[in-house]
């Protein structure tokens, strides 16, 4: 079936079998491999993308269900040059080691801080509980997200 949506600000189209998840559509048909697929049944959070502003698990959404939506992946968070404030914060706080889970953490944290720039540490810990990381022990990730909040307090999206 033919699917059309907006990926990272650009209109895209794909011809996919009905059973294709949004994750596989993005990776295999649109060749944007920043989104990682871990468990394929909604427990690890690695494949998190942002659909119409909300963080969702792209392995638990059909590509067909994204028709007409605005989808943002980790590629869409990164400015043309350098890193976003959130990504810089991950580097500063050593919030990743192998990096497999990182796109999911970045998209989740970006959606959260965009909607709730004043999220407290407890809220951030609670939200990030939906993403698994087997390297870091989470502490540095939580520190990085907390530290990035100031960049989201401004309303200008260009500053992110």
């Amino acid at each position, binding site marked *: *079936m033919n699917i059309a949506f907006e990926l990272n600000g650009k209109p895209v189209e794909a011809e996919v*079998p*009905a*059973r294709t*998840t949004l994750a*596989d559509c993005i990776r295999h048909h649109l060749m944007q491999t920043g989104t990682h697929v871990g468990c*394929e*049944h*909604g427990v690890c*959070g690695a494949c*998190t993308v942002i659909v119409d502003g*909300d*963080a*969702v*698990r792209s*392995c*638990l*959404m*059909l590509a*067909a*269900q994204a028709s007409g939506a605005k989808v943002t992946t980790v590629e869409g968070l990164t400015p043309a040059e350098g890193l976003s404030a959130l990504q810089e914060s991950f580097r500063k706080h050593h919030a990743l080691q192998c990096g497999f889970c990182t796109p999911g953490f970045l998209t*989740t944290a970006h959606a*959260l801080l965009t909607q709730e720039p004043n999220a407290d540490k407890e809220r951030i810990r*609670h*939200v990030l*509980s*939906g993403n698994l990381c087997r390297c870091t022990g989470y502490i540095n990730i939580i520190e990085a997200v907390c530290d990035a909040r100031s960049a989201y307090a401004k309303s200008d999206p260009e500053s992110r």
Partner: protein
Amino acid sequence: MKLPNFEYLAPSSPAEVVALLAAHPGEAKIIAGGQSLLPTMAFRLAQPAYLVDLRNVEGMNRIVIDDSGVRLGARTRWRDIEDDARLATAHPLLKEAITHVAHYQVRNRGTVGGSLAHADPAAEMPCIAATCEAELTLLGPEGERRMKAADFFLGPLTTALSDDEMILEVRLPRWPAQRRWAFLEFARRPGDFALGGVALYYDLDAENRACNTHIGVVGACYYSKRLPIAESALDGKRVDAETARAVARAASEEADPTSDFHASAEYRKSLVGTLLERALVTAAQRTS
């Protein structure tokens, strides 16, 4: 693993949804958020030949609060309940219970109707529906029918919903402002399925004694239902420490969990007692 093959259909009205279900008896499943159905399919526990998506059906995600109570459209997401400030007074038990549903990303997709139709006894919404004597509105080829939650849940992952029926909405009866309540769960990590949980509410009569007690459990029952023996142990009593212990003991005995990889039935029964005793203390201390 990858999903099995199916044909994808996205009609735009409830009548068309029901017609498609009737046209493919036993072979079609409704998908809304897909947060329970898609993992089930990934594990090949379900392989429907047709998926009928509700995404183009307008008006099924409304939260209506009126004299009859709270009406939740079947496609209402957990996130919509979280964001609706009116529910803090219109149905605080629902609002509190929903904070325990799954993780952030799942809450942005998962729906009330999906959870009720999936009927996992470890899920919060079926527990709230059963505990609060919710009424479901179902639509089939013959038209609408209404059904009490107590008649809807028949077993684990088993409901009275026919193959050619869909859930339109669920109504939770009106919530009096003075009502005492608590909802407690225990899970190893936030967002995981709870090892056990309890939902409790009761009203106070003129002599400050508990009446109209409703107790339900999460994850420690064969299917979502109330605990009438524990409820009658509280009705007519003043809620003090001694009563709380007695009611908790009754609930512990009455709960009928199964053992699994995560916890034994004995542990879950004990947990129900511990949580209910705490819930009774919380509810008694709560002032409206």
